[in-house]
């Protein structure tokens, strides 16, 4: 199923340039400047990580940077809230293990 809305009765979407990024090594496409989580969701990726103790799958919940349900490793930096972090060309997005390691 196509997850991107192309026609909407009220809203017009002004999307940025198409860019490529990787998710756990897999090459995906999204639009520059949209939240990483939106690009992942549009590509069918719903599981963004696992909870540190019970290893429960985690997706986004609030989508405005308030709940920390969506922490991932972006360009090597852990604990990035991908629901508010903007997508850029060539980003390396990875599933985070545990609480993440600061390099």
């Amino acid at each position, binding site marked *: *199923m196509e*997850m*991107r*809305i192309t026609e*909407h*009765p*009220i*809203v017009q*979407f002004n*999307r940025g340039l198409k860019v490529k990024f990787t998710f756990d090594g897999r090459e995906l496409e999204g639009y520059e400047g*949209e*939240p990483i989580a*939106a690009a992942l*969701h*549009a590509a069918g990726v*719903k*599981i*963004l990580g696992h*909870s540190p103790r019970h290893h*429960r*799958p*985690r*997706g*986004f*919940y*609030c*989508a*405005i*940077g*308030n709940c920390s349900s969506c922490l991932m490793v972006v360009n090597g930096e852990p604990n990035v809230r991908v*629901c508010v972090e903007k997508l850029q060309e060539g980003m390396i997005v990875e599933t985070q293990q545990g609480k993440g390691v600061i390099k």
Partner: protein
Amino acid sequence: MTQTEILVIGGGPAGLRAAAAAAELGAQVLLIEEMDWLGGQLVKQTHKFFGSKEQYASRRGIDIARVLAEELDNHDRVTVWTGAPVLGIYEDGVVTAQKDNRHVKIRPRRIIVATGAAEKVLPFPNNDLPGIYGAGAVQTLMNLHGVLPGRRVLMVGAGNIGLIVSYQLLQAGVEVAAVIEGAPRIGGYLVHASKIRRAGVPILTRYTIKEALGRDMVTGAVIQQLDDHWQPVPGTEQTLEVDVICLAVGLTPLADLLWQAGCEMRFIPELGGHVPCRNHLLETTRPGIYVAGDVSGVEEASAAMVEGRLAGLAAARSLGYGGPEAESCIENALEQLHGLRSGPAGDKIRSGLKKLLGEEGAVC
């Protein structure tokens, strides 16, 4: 250290109106918004609003956001920072924020907190699975970023938000399996309910969610009927095949900054949870810190705009701006608020405010 006379935290309808009003009386204002855009909740509202003409009724939320943001362009005394979350309010009155990846300090003479509200969650087994989203998150994904949340949705909550987001899902081409509501009656406006009923979506009152199904992500939901005492009725379970469960079970003030600043708070269920004690001019128990909008009690955009204006006027007047003109503007804003809250739709808010302020409107 950045100096300003009035600092407004939050660029939703309350904060935007507060900044404009304070600048109108002559004060210098800095408005800080965490997101990259102004308008708060309004930017996701594609439907037409209720309310009176002064509050732009019958215009779409997205358009109201634009009008309010443009109003600020007329005031050269207002500086706006977007993409800058405010992090703390300290004992000595210094406020910290993140701006351009740096930690910055601000020293304001007055502060207006207009941070809005956060969504509540609901406890049930598997409520943490991917595919369970707040109604606001679904709106953000769909109306702001143009991405569908999924294929088939169970909406939990038939207040205005649950009803409106269900309608927006239908508009975007997503199937809504049902809207369930624990209370015996639909909480939102009936116009919204009729629109989604006409589209064939059942609204089941006295129903709750028993559990979410799925291992890695949502594949279904079990719903169950409730009796008069909100207890589940055995044998009434139904399984719905859905890939999204959307929670629209109410909002609660986003008051972290007020807690941290040491403002006295009280738990008032009618206002959405813990709310700041304040006087009739919206000044909290910490002198010089004002509140406006949903953070002072969850209500509507119309009330948020008027509260914003009131807080902006009161804060500017306390710095000596405005003279006799300020008095009449403040009286006018108080009258407008009174008008918005009269009538049956304002019952809940009135009873909450009475608990908070007492009959005389004094600080609790």
